[in-house]
């Protein structure tokens, strides 16, 4: 059933494959006299595995077979935008004119890299409608931190102490975590029965303490925040700002500019909307777009362009400072740049249109079989179901998710957003064809049937994966975080 299943060869750990005195690399002979540090500085034990090159190749090739991935599987993970990662992007990132470029090289020798970054900034400015963009944040979470620091700097510059951030109860976990890191207090805003933010709720929460509203649009229920402009006006009147978590940008690229909704600052996840590969959990990239008022506070360095010459400005007196050693995850920037250039504005619009079409198609096909919480007529790029219809049979969202693995599908995001009990959050993205969606929906319907007729089958799923259901309780009660080597003195 599952295409992932290769003959399940057991693959030991590197350390278990290791054989004393085996080597996997060769170096030219040392052309200067050999020197070693003296005495207590010299390393006594170095416990690394000893393998030949073919050992290493076989090891990692086998491990690769045990992963689900976009190139093999449909991956409808809500909020994660698991779209196809074009191969030409990879070619660009590996181009030696960029991959061998040292970050400390003189400015006149890195003009191509700076020009690429500048152009990428311009494109992101245009799509967000903002006045400035920084590419420095290394991930979405660091983008959030940057945005909140800009907001803090802005208020401090106005001699105001504002310590509260309003966050809807549908928000990603990073939002409140980032607030803490940036020294803010979180004020949770409830979502209405319609799955939206309400003007009244916001109004009630406003005070002179409120620094900003941190909103995700469309929200994590997959709905456009229809009142956002009015809400933003309220915040602005209160002297507060509006931050947008751009996790769901894929729903509206080329269809709306966040600036027009009253947003003052937003981060954009290049690894979601602009197709840079997730890499099994990173690296990501989280550029931040902002309005003119926040420009003086942006992190350094800043790319400047003067008569076709690019340079880096490291000294800005009001800047929030440094976020990392260099200039962001440059390799990710190349990939996103190529993607945007390849699609152009019409391609980007089509991308968002098809992403929304796909989500609504799944919604239409599955709504008879799975409960639809916060029901509205249409959703945007993702649709959220719950396990309410399966609960009477003792079947949970987790069971449904695990059963999907048996059919070669990566499960949707589960148990998020928190406002939906037993949430199944499905984001198909524009990459998937009608055939793929039909097959997936057929499988989901099949599983809904299994849940009624044979719930026990689901409780023990999956059956066809590399390993069966994993004992996470055991892992947490008695953490084994490294392989224990029997260490022997070497010299």
């Amino acid at each position: 059933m599952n295409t992932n299943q290769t003959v399940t060869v057991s693959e030991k750990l590197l350390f278990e494959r290791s054989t004393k005195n085996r080597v996997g690399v060769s170096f030219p002979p040392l052309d200067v006299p050999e020197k070693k540090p003296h005495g207590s500085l010299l390393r006594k034990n170095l416990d690394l595995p000893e393998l030949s090159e073919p050992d290493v190749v076989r090891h990692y090739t086998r491990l690769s077979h045990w992963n689900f991935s976009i190139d093999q599987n449909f991956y409808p993970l809500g909020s994660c935008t698991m779209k196809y990662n074009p191969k030409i992007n990879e070619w660009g990132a590996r181009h030696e004119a960029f991959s061998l470029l040292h970050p400390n090289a003189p400015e006149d020798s890195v003009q191509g890299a700076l020009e690429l970054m500048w152009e990428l900034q311009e494109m992101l400015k245009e799509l967000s409608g903002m006045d400035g963009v920084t590419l420095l944040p290394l991930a979405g979470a660091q983008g959030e931190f940057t945005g909140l620091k800009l907001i803090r700097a802005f208020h401090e510059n106005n001699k105001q102490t504002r310590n509260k951030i309003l966050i809807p109860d549908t928000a990603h976990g990073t939002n409140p975590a980032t607030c803490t890191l940036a020294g803010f207090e979180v004020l949770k805003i409830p979502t209405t029965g319609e799955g939206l933010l309400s003007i009244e709720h916001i109004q009630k929460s406003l005070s002179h303490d409120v620094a900003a509203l941190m909103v995700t649009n469309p929200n994590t229920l997959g709905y456009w925040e229809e009142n956002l402009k009015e809400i933003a006006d309220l915040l602005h009147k209160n002297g507060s700002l509006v931050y947008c978590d751009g996790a769901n940008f894929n729903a509206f690229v080329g269809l709306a500019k966040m600036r027009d909704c009253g947003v003052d600052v937003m981060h954009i996840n290049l690894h979601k909307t602009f197709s840079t590969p997730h890499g099994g959990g990173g690296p990501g990239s989280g550029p931040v777009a902002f309005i003119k008022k926040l420009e003086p506070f942006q992190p350094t360095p800043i790319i400047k362009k003067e008569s076709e010459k690019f340079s880096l400005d490291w000294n800005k007196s009001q800047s929030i400072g440094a976020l990392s050693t260099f200039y962001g995850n440059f390799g990710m920037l190349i990939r996103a740049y190529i993607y945007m250039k390849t699609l152009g504005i019409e391609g980007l619009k089509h991308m968002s249109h098809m992403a929304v079409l796909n989500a609504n198609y799944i919604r239409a096909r599955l709504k008879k079989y799975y409960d639809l919480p916060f029901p509205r007529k249409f959703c945007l790029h993702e649709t959220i179901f719950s396990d309410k219809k399966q609960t009477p049979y003792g079947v949970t969202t987790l069971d449904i998710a695990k059963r999907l693995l048996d059919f070669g599908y990566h499960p949707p995001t589960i148990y998020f957003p928190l406002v939906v009990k037993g949430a199944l959050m499905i984001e198909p993205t524009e990459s998937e064809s009608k055939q793929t969606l039909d097959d997936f929906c057929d499988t989901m319907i099949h599983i809904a049937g299994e849940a009624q007729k044979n719930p026990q089958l689901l409780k023990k799923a999956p059956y066809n994966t590399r390993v069966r259901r994993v004992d996470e309780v055991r892992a947490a009660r008695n953490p084994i975080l490294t392989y224990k080597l029997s260490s022997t003195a070497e010299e």
Partner: protein
Amino acid sequence: MEIPEDLLYTEQHEWAHVEEKIVTVGITDFAQSQLGDIVYLDLPKEGTEVSAEDTFGVVESVKAVSDLYAPVSGRVVDVNTSLADSPSLVNDDPYNEGWMIKIQMDSAGNPELKHLLASSAYEELVEGQESSEDGMEKELAGDEDE
């Protein structure tokens, strides 16, 4: 769902057993069943001062975390150290072997005790929560990234 009659309860699902000035504290059967398999507890050291309704520790399952609230004010005079190695005791035997701390109150007639729920009132609270969507207040995982 077991709710012993001789105990007092908080709205956050701690139980309290009062014996003179000493109050033994743990979490209820309902609480442990909502959390699932408990993997870790963060409990205060002996001698720590705690205040009624403030958090005194944390209980964790694989994907949920819940704060622990002190039913009364006082000084922690004993901690159940066996929970460090066997957190599952809280699941298996929440009212006996799964006890967490003992608090010594200033006086036996502590007025704070009047704010705690009797078993019948707690039972009503639990029934209400079982049928509603919220359940007990805990932070549960959603797997998504930025």
